[in-house]
């Protein structure tokens, strides 16, 4: 394996990009990701907060301590992962993290790995999805993406500018990807609109240092209230309102998440 450290975006030419490596390193070790060339992009991806723009090389630890960003994003960063991981994790890498579904991590030949079924639907799925879970029942683990979805953030990449919702897609028989990122496309910056108020609430199996079972971000943006949820669908989930939870399609052992989501949505809207 070789490691490249390009000094400009123009020098990029294939290879597996690595920023903090908190996802890349374990997945390489487990053989889920394979690469002959690793490309350390820390030197070419913007870092830091400038006005309403956030370089995606900014770490979650830096954002957790930033007063220049909306509360929901700050809180999502503060409650994500562990202190060491927040020191290492870039916000860009966070948006692109893979599912924590244990079947997937243990390399079961499931739909998301290109196989012919979803093992979680029939098997253990207490931590899985309550929406859009018929093909792949995984639950998206990013607190940060849920917050950015509620905040209506936009992404700037080397190829385009897009609302964060368009970074994600539900996997299907024809295409198992959960993001729309193209090979070689680099995310550079996040752009936030003017946010009037926002909150992030997170339910975990323990009080600290755990993935979201359900995360709820609420934000008031241009007079409109937006809700972004983590842990409820294979991708970060935009909820049109509290009543949309009536349309959830929980699996036998994920029904409890609907109740938790209902309670968190109510509390988040109260606090807004």
């Amino acid at each position, binding site marked *: *394996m*070789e*490691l490249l450290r390009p000094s400009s975006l123009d020098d990029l030419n294939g290879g597996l990009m*690595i920023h903090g*490596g*908190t996802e890349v*390193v*374990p997945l*390489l*070790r487990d053989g889920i990701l394979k690469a002959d060339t*690793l490309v*350390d992009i*820390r030197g070419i991806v913007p870092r830091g907060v400038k006005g309403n723009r956030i370089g995606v090389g900014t770490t979650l*630890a830096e954002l957790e301590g930033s007063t220049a960003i909306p509360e929901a994003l700050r809180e999502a960063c503060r409650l994500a*992962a*562990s*202190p*060491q*991981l927040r*020191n*290492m994790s870039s916000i860009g890498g966070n948006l692109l993290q893979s599912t924590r579904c244990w079947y997937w991590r243990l390399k079961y030949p499931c739909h998301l790995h290109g196989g012919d079924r979803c093992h979680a639907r029939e098997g253990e799925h207490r931590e899985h999805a309550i929406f859009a879970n018929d093909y792949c029942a995984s639950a998206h683990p990013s607190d940060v993406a849920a917050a950015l979805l509620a905040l209506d953030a936009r992404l700037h990449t080397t190829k385009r500018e897009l609302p964060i919702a368009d970074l994600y897609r539900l996997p299907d028989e024809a295409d198992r990807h959960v993001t729309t990122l193209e090979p070689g496309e680099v995310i550079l910056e996040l752009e936030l609109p003017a946010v009037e108020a926002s909150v992030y609430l997170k339910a975990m199996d323990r009080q*600290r*240092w755990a993935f979201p079972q359900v995360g709820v971000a609420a934000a008031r943006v241009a007079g409109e209230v937006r809700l972004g949820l983590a842990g409820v669908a294979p991708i970060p989930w935009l909820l049109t309102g509290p009543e949309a939870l009536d349309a959830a399609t929980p699996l036998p052992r994920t029904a409890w998440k609907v109740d938790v989501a209902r309670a968190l949505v109510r509390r988040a809207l109260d606090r807004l």
Partner: protein
Amino acid sequence: MPELSLTVNEHRYEVEAPIEMSLAHVLREVVGLTGTKIACNEGHCGACTVQVDGMPTLSCITLAHTVSGEITTIEGLRDHPLIDAFVRADAVQCGFCTPGQVVSAAALVAANPSPTIDDIRHTMAGNICRCGTYPRIEEAILHWRD
């Protein structure tokens, strides 16, 4: 094999290691500093915590070749008052998590010399202790300068 230059506890080491080798592995097996422990080897427990430029970092999921900053391991904290504080509070049972605990705690008190219990719980959350010595670890950090 690719060459690598690391600064650990203010010493410079010129070593060789494959690109895919973790910092924890290089520290223990190549440099020979075995104070840093590997438990889960996947970022969950904090046993492998070292500081990179003062920042607690999980060496088990860091590739050694990607590190350019100064590394501090438990061996570099031999004379830190926290060591004595951990002993006084009897904050060690099996001791496997302890190097990582001390490395995280040293960064905490450097940034915030008088942490509250809540500061300690937030900042130490990434260091798991399977023996459950948390109350004593908190006590050791609260009274680290006594």
